[in-house]
């Protein structure tokens, strides 16, 4: 183990970490809102809206991110119908190609997470809102969305971590993020294990911060649970607790219903 080399590699890899964070932050920011839109489209009763949304989610969840990235980067790089449009200014840049691929991917996963959250909003709360005379928009803004997001938060935290990890693939399309920097150092030092240990530790640190931030947000968004006793917790219903538990543990939106054509969602 060459510790001197590990020390020397920290600075360049941290420089790459900035790009990693920028990649993830941009994709997550766009993907979150696009995901809400996609979730609503999926839940729409109009098949002209829900079927394309279903197809979108189906494609992006069913194929590896690496394939999606290569289609965006190398595939569209060859496609003449893109070259003559304004999109080329964006697609020309590897960074933006990576952002596009990550965003398209996270939109699909986020929409499933949010949809699961919306479906888990207790019906009684909707009825209560209606009884108060809330309009649909107001109800959506004040009741459905806040409750759904709270429900979805643990799973969404996992999705952010998946994005941090997925951003490593950007190195395969010339973006010099963390893994790219690490590989570049390896190509001149031939010490892959040492360098990857340094990079891996920084990834772990980033994900640790993400996990902490999501936990804190969870805590803030659940003032009513903070006051609860443990006995109340148990009464709150095992089903939801278990769903949240599984959601927190296995990444890939484990707490969520699978998209399936034979199970109409409504």
């Amino acid at each position, binding site marked *: 183990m060459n510790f001197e080399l590990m020390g020397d590699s920290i600075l360049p890899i941290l420089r790459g970490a900035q790009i990693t964070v920028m990649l993830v932050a941009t994709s997550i920011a766009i993907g979150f809102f696009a995901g809400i839109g996609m979730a609503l489209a999926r839940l729409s009763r109009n098949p002209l809206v829900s079927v394309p949304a279903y197809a979108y989610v189906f494609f992006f969840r*069913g194929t590896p991110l690496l*394939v999606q990235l*290569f*289609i965006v980067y190398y595939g569209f790089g060859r496609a003449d119908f893109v070259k003559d449009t304004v999109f080329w200014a964006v697609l020309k840049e590897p960074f933006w190609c990576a952002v596009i691929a990550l965003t398209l991917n996270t939109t699909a996963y986020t929409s499933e997470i949010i949809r699961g959250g919306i479906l888990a909003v207790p019906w009684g709360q909707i009825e209560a809102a209606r009884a108060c005379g809330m309009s649909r928009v107001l109800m959506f803004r004040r009741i459905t969305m806040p409750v759904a997001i709270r429900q979805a938060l643990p799973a969404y935290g996992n999705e952010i971590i998946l994005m941090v990890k997925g*951003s490593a693939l950007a190195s395969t399309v010339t973006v010099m993020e963390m893994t790219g920097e690490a590989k570049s150092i390896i190509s001149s030092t031939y010490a*892959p294990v040492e360098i990857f*240990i340094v990079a891996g530790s920084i990834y772990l640190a980033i994900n640790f911060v993400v996990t902490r931030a999501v936990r804190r947000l969870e805590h803030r968004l659940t003032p009513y649970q903070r006051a609860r006793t443990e006995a109340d917790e148990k009464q709150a219903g095992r089903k939801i607790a278990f769903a949240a538990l*599984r959601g927190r*543990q*296995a990444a890939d939106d484990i707490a969520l219903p699978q998209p399936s054509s034979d199970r109409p969602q409504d």
Partner: protein
Amino acid sequence: MIELLTYGDQGWGDEMLRGAGMTVAVALLAYAFGIVVGMAGAAGKVGGGSVLRGVLDVYTTVVRGVPELLVIYLLFFGLSSAVMKVASVFGYTGYIEVDNFVIGVLAVGLISGAYSTEVFRGALQAIPNGQIEAGRAVGMTGWQIFHRIQLPQMLRLALPGLGNIWQLTLKDTALISVTGLAELMRMSRVAAGATHQPFTFYLAAAALYLVMTTFSQTAFQRAERHFSRSVRTASGQPAP
């Protein structure tokens, strides 16, 4: 463009399909390996001592927190030299080659195993304690409690999670293309490079992956229904 995907010496269709076969083989073995690791890991996390629990926590945290690409690179570059170092302790100084296929299965299996561990642990812990107490009360041994009470319910409770892990595992195999193993992603990269038609080949790869994920997802949904047949819910749908 279509002739590029044909079967035989002129097209890349047969190479792509062979690659897909390799992808399935790696994914199946890695998944099975991951389930064994996951069951053992969950048992250790629930019932093990503090040292074992600590080791398992490090394993699941690190493997789930570090990019899959890094785990694969680490094993790819590090495993051979680690094995050689161990061998040299026993006096063997030659080169020991660990096959790419084995590395692919181990790397993807270890990633899959970390997720499986957590799913199995969640399932184990979701079984009400009262049932275990009841088992003890009627005089069951620890093993009897495990395989008569915990195991059957654990499988049902873990199945949705395991289905997702299978999808993850299948998609993760695309990353072992960096080791040169001739799986689907590798073959598409080779074909895209050789023919300069990336759009065709990456779309074809996406289609093949979609076929694999859709097919297996249907299988998992069937299994879920099968194992949940004894559980009734108000809606008549399988319980989670």
